[in-house]
């Protein structure tokens, strides 16, 4: 029996116990830190290059001495590298400075608005996944109505910018039909329009990815095997098929969630949603450097964490990723 399990073929301790091996995890984390550093540097430079907060904070006819005093008070008279170094040093201790605009520490200010944004992004993400995933699967496995719906939604989602879509939804559902409120004050009904607006692009992209992945997977040999086992069609499609499509979908869903955070800026402004996006637009308008840095940094941190989570999730779905085995079993992202 040359082919029965030799000792070397037995499950060895080398078999990955954690979803990502610690070395891969370390590489991911340092990658994430590098991204965060880049984000903070870029925000800092772009913000400083585009305007002067002192001019914006003081009346146009303020005397030169007042300007200099304010610039000194805000620390803006120091060389840029020093300013950035100080920012970084304080940021590492969780201190993002004081907002020029509100005169309050930035960190609590940002954290106060964070829940509203997370609520919006999470709602939009759930809509995108809970509608997009089944829509993609049904359109690949059955066609018909699901395909038509997918065509329509992806056309809407991909072709219409969020601010326009948001305005149209408000016009139809709030102004004309009076079905839903326009403003942002509490309650699930207030969440519906902004979340729908925010979700549509992601929904379109996710359902299209799922559909094309499923179309390819449903032609594979192991799908025929599953049918040859007499399994019901739902199990063939939703278990044997869908699982093989999930890895690229999860990777993309992670990026989508990050995208939702950034698209939230536009949607929050359109719907006057009191989130981090609206705060960062305000900060940008007033060249409120500390506040801007704080919002961007926290959004960036969220983005990086989500992607890290997606990587770990992928390794759980496809054990070949964790063990480093290469095979053509599932489709490439």
């Amino acid at each position, binding site marked *: 029996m040359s*082919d029965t399990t030799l000792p070397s073929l037995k499950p060895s301790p080398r078999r990955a116990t954690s979803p990502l091996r610690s070395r891969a995890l370390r590489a991911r984390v340092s990658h994430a830190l590098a991204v965060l550093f880049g984000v903070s540097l870029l925000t800092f430079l772009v913000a400083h290059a585009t305007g002067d907060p002192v001019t914006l904070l003081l009346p146009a006819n303020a005397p030169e001495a007042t300007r200099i005093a304010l610039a000194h008070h805000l620390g803006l008279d120091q060389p840029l590298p020093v300013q950035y170094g100080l920012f970084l040093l304080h940021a590492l201790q969780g201190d993002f400075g004081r907002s020029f605009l509100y005169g309050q520490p930035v960190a609590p200010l940002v954290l106060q608005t964070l829940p509203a944004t997370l609520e919006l992004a999470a709602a939009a993400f759930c809509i995108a996944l809970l509608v997009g995933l089944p829509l993609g699967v049904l359109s690949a496995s059955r066609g018909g109505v699901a395909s038509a719906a997918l065509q329509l939604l992806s056309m809407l989602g991909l072709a219409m910018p969020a601010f326009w879509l948001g305005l149209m939804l408000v016009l139809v559902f709030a102004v004309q039909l009076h079905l839903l409120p326009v403003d942002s004050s509490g309650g699930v009904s207030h969440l519906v329009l902004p979340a729908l607006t925010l979700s549509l692009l992601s929904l379109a992209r996710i359902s299209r990815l799922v559909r094309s992945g499923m179309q390819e997977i449903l032609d*594979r040999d192991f799908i025929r095997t599953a049918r*040859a086992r007499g399994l019901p069609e739902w199990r063939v499609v939703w278990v044997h098929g869908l699982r093989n499509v999930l890895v690229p979908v999860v990777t993309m869903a992670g990026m989508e969630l990050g995208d939702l955070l950034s698209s939230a800026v536009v949607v929050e402004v359109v719907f006057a949603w009191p989130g981090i996006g609206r705060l960062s637009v305000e900060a940008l308008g007033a060249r409120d450097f500390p506040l801007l840095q704080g919002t961007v940094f926290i959004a960036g941190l969220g983005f990086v964490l989500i992607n890290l989570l997606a990587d770990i999730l992928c390794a759980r779905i496809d054990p070949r990723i964790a063990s480093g085995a290469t095979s053509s079993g599932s489709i490439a992202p």
Partner: protein
Amino acid sequence: MSTHLVDVSGLDVRFGATHAVRDFSLAVAQGESVGLVGESGSGKSAALLALLGLHPEARVQVSARTLRVGGTDLLSATGPQLRDLRGGVAGLIFQDPLAALNPLLTVGAQVSEVLRRHRRLPARAARQEAAALLALVGITDAQARLGHYPHEFSGGMRQRVMIATALAGQPRLLLADEPTTALDVSVQSEIVRLILRLRAERGMGLLWVTHDLALMAGIVDRVVVMYAGRVMETAPVDALYGRPRHPYTQTLLASLPRLDRPHRPRAALPAEATAPGHGAQTGCPFAPRCPRRFSACDTLPPLFTDGATQAACWLLA
């Protein structure tokens, strides 16, 4: 109604314009083992898939006068009847277990799902039975390997897993589509012996599809030889090897290497195999390559019976 496990006549399978299987007939008795032999493209796998209704309806047209497997009439079967047949009445082993097993489900899950579907076992019992089945097909440390994925097994071990999934529904018929072709030579004979042992123990009928005529000796009771989508000859295995009637079978056998006569010149078939192809076959499909062709070959020959042998050749008329 026949008591045959497989009862097929007049089977045609078309992939669009390609007519892969033509007027195919086959009978497999309870517990009988039959080899279905042909070159690639002869339609043997297409015929096998038709037995379980596995061709996608949208792309493949299947028609037949009779198409019964284990008492299920595939021409009129409902969805649930088809699913009881697949895996329950007939277990199917595919050629390439790496492609045919789901890469993202553990082997335990893939054996268990058959047990749960066809034997209605609850989850825990199915897992126990799955371990027993893996042990039965020769996988050591079966309990622990339930949680492993197909890529963690060697090729031969993967085919054993495939066999375990095919056995799980306690089928009366085992369908094997080139089950050893994708394996290392050293592993092939083990898999052959395993399948034969399980067949004997469980009294299953066996339909073994292969391009390897030599392999069939000592494995099956009867051989069906296909060419260009048609049955050329069907005969008990001894008769086929001892006195092949159809020139195609004769040429195939003459092309095999023989240990007892190593220096015997081996026959080679001239030119390309006739494609199963397009349009009607008006004459014998083998005629263009046949060494014994004569005027009658321009007309399609029916199956002539000679003793226990049937052959589609005018020489037997």
